[in-house]
């Protein structure tokens, strides 16, 4: 047991570049900190120790029968009593543990020996081998385990080892599928590509980079499979299909069941042993998974917290008084007014991780505001708090949001009011997402997904909504709206899907559209079209737009004003012309520099040869 735990610990999901010992010690420590981890380890180690020491500590041989003392109650000689043949229950329990653990290990070992290499090869090379193995897997998985073991028993006679080898083969698909999926997910990762380019053989790439990815899931899977193996092996023994010369928990359970009218206590011991062992394995699997997941969370948290811990103190010191003050100053009327907004996520240790802090801006009708920043700057979180679509665990930790003069987040509230926003969402505020494909429900036609919101929000008939949807599809530049209307999302291209989403966003004639990186996932040629479309619609419908992007090219192309965000805070605000010509903050300058360097400006700039185009983009 201790062996497998150690390996589990190494296998933190950091495939390359991390020192193994460091990762191992932290995961191991987390595992030991977790009461579930400690308890399960203690149980399993105790059982393993008892099993190993069985020949030494068992007071009797496993089959030693004292026929003058059958079905005896516990006493000083037989501490758990005896069975119907006068055999000592405690001794048989110990020897049973030996056999049970060994058979579980054998089963898991066989399953790994088959499933792991097959999964690695199928995942790495794909092709024919994968097709054939998938087919074999589908057969193996449609066979009920116990029925197969009955067949094996009929064919080969009563041997624990043969039946566990057979069960190992039967259950190997679980390793195969796990490994294949894991390998497929990293096969085209950069570091694997890099290893390939640097001339490493496939074998060493698999051994070094890919194997490390699947280690952790395999350990977790092994805990589960060992438990299943114990259950099924004991089940066979319980049916009386095992080797009659061996003491096993299954045989003891069946022995107890036969004498249930006389000494029901005989049932308890083997059942308890099984429940403890299998339960220990299940808990251990869960604890390792938790330890690994916590590791990822902590790593992720560290990245953000380092940048925010400084602002968090300041935020704590700021009482709600200030947000009240902000309301008093907010007399002028804007379409959206965000005042001193803060968004945070409660952490396990009770603190709150701030992802948006003290952000204020406004948007008017007929205006496009760009929110610019790198990933993790809090720009999307800001956008989602206006939409009221933050994840469930998010909290508003300060400030307010007003839409058209009404609060959607009043000062002092820690959540976006869903009640108020559900009246606005779809109707007056709408949303264009980043990734077109994943934002359409694959199970419904595009037409359905356009028509339903209009029916719900505008209260018009389906037929009318259908007419409007077709018109909208034409408006967003789709040449055959009828066909797109009837298509499922997977039947259209990404650019087309994004046009559909834009059509959906404007379908209920909103006053405000929030577009979250609307062109990032699209081809460059399609990007320009979609931006043109957005601008055209915005001008025609006179709506306010919040454009969330990391791309200053898009900002230059589209926006009237821009706010720059970094680490959850607003660092600069101004008209596009000001910011692009004359960025004041060093962060904005770096952001601009990194955007424009070595790239052709996206504007129609006629530059003289040699002039520094990147410094003078015309908005």
């Amino acid at each position, binding site marked *: 047991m201790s062996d497998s735990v150690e390996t589990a610990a190494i296998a933190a999901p950091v495939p390359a570049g991390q020192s193994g010992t460091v990762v191992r010690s932290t995961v191991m420590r987390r595992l030991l900190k977790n009461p579930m981890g400690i308890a399960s380890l203690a149980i399993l180690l105790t059982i393993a120790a008892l099993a190993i020491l069985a020949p030494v500590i068992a007071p009797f041989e496993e089959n030693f029968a004292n026929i003058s003392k059958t079905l005896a109650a516990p006493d000083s000689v037989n501490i758990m009593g005896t069975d119907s043949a006068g055999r000592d229950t405690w001794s048989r329990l110990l020897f049973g543990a030996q056999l049970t653990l060994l058979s579980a290990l054998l089963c898991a070992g066989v399953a790994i020996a088959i499933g792991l290499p097959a999964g690695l090869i199928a995942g790495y090379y794909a092709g024919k081998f994968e097709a054939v193995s998938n087919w074999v897997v*589908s*057969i193996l*998985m*449609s*066979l*009920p*385990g*116990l*029925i197969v*073991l*009955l*067949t094996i028993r*009929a*064919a*080969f*006679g009563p041997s624990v080892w043969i039946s566990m080898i057979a069960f190992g083969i039967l259950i190997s698909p679980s390793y195969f599928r796990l490994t294949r999926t894991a390998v497929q997910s990293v096969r085209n990762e950069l570091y694997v590509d890099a290893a390939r380019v640097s001339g490493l053989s496939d074998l060493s790439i698999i051994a070094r980079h890919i194997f490390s990815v699947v280690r952790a899931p395999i350990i977790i899977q092994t805990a*589960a499979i060992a*438990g299943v193996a114990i*259950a*099924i092996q004991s*089940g066979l023994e*319980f*049916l*009386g299909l095992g080797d009659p010369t061996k003491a096993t928990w299954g045989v003891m*359970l069946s022995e107890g*069941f036969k004498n*249930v009218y006389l000494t*029901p206590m005989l*049932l308890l011991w083997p*059942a308890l042993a*099984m*429940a403890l062992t*299998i*339960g220990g394995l*299940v808990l251990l699997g*869960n604890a390792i998974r938790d330890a690994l997941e916590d590791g990822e969370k902590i790593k992720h948290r560290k990245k953000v917290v380092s940048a925010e811990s400084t602002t968090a103190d300041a935020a704590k010191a700021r009482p709600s008084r200030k947000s009240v003050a902000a309301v008093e100053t907010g007399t002028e009327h804007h379409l959206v007014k965000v005042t001193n907004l803060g968004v945070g996520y409660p952490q396990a240790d009770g603190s709150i991780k701030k992802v948006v802090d003290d952000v204020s801006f406004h948007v008017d009708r007929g205006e496009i505001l760009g929110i610019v920043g790198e990933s993790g700057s809090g720009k999307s979180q800001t956008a989602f708090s206006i939409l009221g*679509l933050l994840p*469930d665990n998010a909290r508003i930790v300060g400030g307010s949001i007003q839409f058209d003069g009404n609060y959607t987040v009043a000062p002092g509230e820690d959540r976006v009011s869903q009640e108020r926003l*559900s009246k606005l*969402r*779809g*109707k007056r505020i*709408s*949303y264009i*997402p980043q*990734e077109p494909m*994943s*934002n*359409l*429900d*694959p*199970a419904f036609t595009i037409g359905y997904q356009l028509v339903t*919101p209009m029916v*719900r*929000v505008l209260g018009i008939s389906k037929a009318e909504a259908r007419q409007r949807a077709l018109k909208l599809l034409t408006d967003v530049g789709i040449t055959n709206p009828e066909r797109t209307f009837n298509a*499922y999302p*997977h039947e259209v291209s990404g650019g087309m899907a994004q046009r559909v*989403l834009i059509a*959906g966003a404007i379908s*209920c004639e909103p006053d405000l559209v929030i577009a979250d990186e609307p062109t990032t996932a699209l081809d460059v040629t399609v990007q320009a079209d979609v931006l043109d479309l957005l601008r055209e619609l915005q001008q025609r419908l006179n709506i306010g737009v919040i454009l969330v992007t990391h791309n200053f090219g898009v900002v230059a192309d589209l926006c009237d004003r821009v706010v720059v965000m970094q680490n959850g805070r607003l660092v600069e605000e101004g008209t596009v012309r000001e910011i692009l010509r004359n960025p004041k903050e060093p962060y904005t300058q770096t952001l601009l520099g990194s955007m424009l360097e070595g790239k052709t400006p996206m504007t129609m700039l006629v530059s003289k040869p040699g002039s520094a185009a990147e410094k003078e983009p015309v908005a």
Partner: protein
Amino acid sequence: MIKFIAKRLGSGLVVLFVVSVLTFTLLYTSSGSIAQNILGDQATPEQVALKEEELGLDQPLFVRYFAWLGDALTGNLGASWFTSEPVANALATRIPVTMTMVFTAMILIAICAALIGVVAAVKRGWVDRVVQIGAIIGDSIPGYVIGVFLVTILAIQLGFFPATSTISPGVGPEAWVYSMTLPVIALLINGVTGGAQQIRSAVIKQLERDYVRTLRSRGIGEREILFKHVLRSAAPAGLTVLSLQLIGMLGGVVIIEQIFALPGMGPLAVTATTQTDLPVVMGVVMYTVVVVIVVNLLVDILNGWLNPKVRVS
């Protein structure tokens, strides 16, 4: 859709064929001297040779296989070597008991696991924690151990239910309900705990999908999102979970029937296995594989209906 079903049906038949070849080969090449086994140790070599001829064991394996296959296709699965009862008859009298139990348990699992899983995914909080803990406990205690304790406590100690079955041909539905309650409970507990947890994960995964957020942004209500979109997308995963549960249950029911002395397929299979009554073993394997293939086909069809992408590809 018809093409899709035909394709699935075809691959099901191929699986059935492959399994029958493998099982037949395994059984008839590995189990030593079958005739000797049947006749006992006292039999003379002549008697053994005669018996082998009678059973057709002197012929090459593939000849025997195709003879078996030819018979099987006409519904004749051979006869038991020990009781001479036709295997098809033996199965026909026992399958109703087993399948009533399995499908009752399955329907209850589907309802309970789906309800609990969805509530845990949507409400989270304490329901969710109970489901998580329940899954650990359910995973830790095999169904037959639960069965043994149900009999011991509810039937033997408290006398609420009969300890062994009161089912015999021609008994009324009351006896069935009375006899089946405990076995069905023993069968379904693991299924409910495990199924609920997996359905919970499937629903949570769907709730976190991008399109759910976009639907919310379009003004669609939570209820409609859950019932029309999320549950529909989570259904394939849920169906797969349930079909795997059913496959496992076809094995588990063998032990449960033994515990409750139910006259189902289980005791037949166990006796045939200990006696090396190969035609019966073969019949039991084929029957369960057919059940699995039919269930998987139904699941595929349902998935195809739920997910247009599956249907097309």
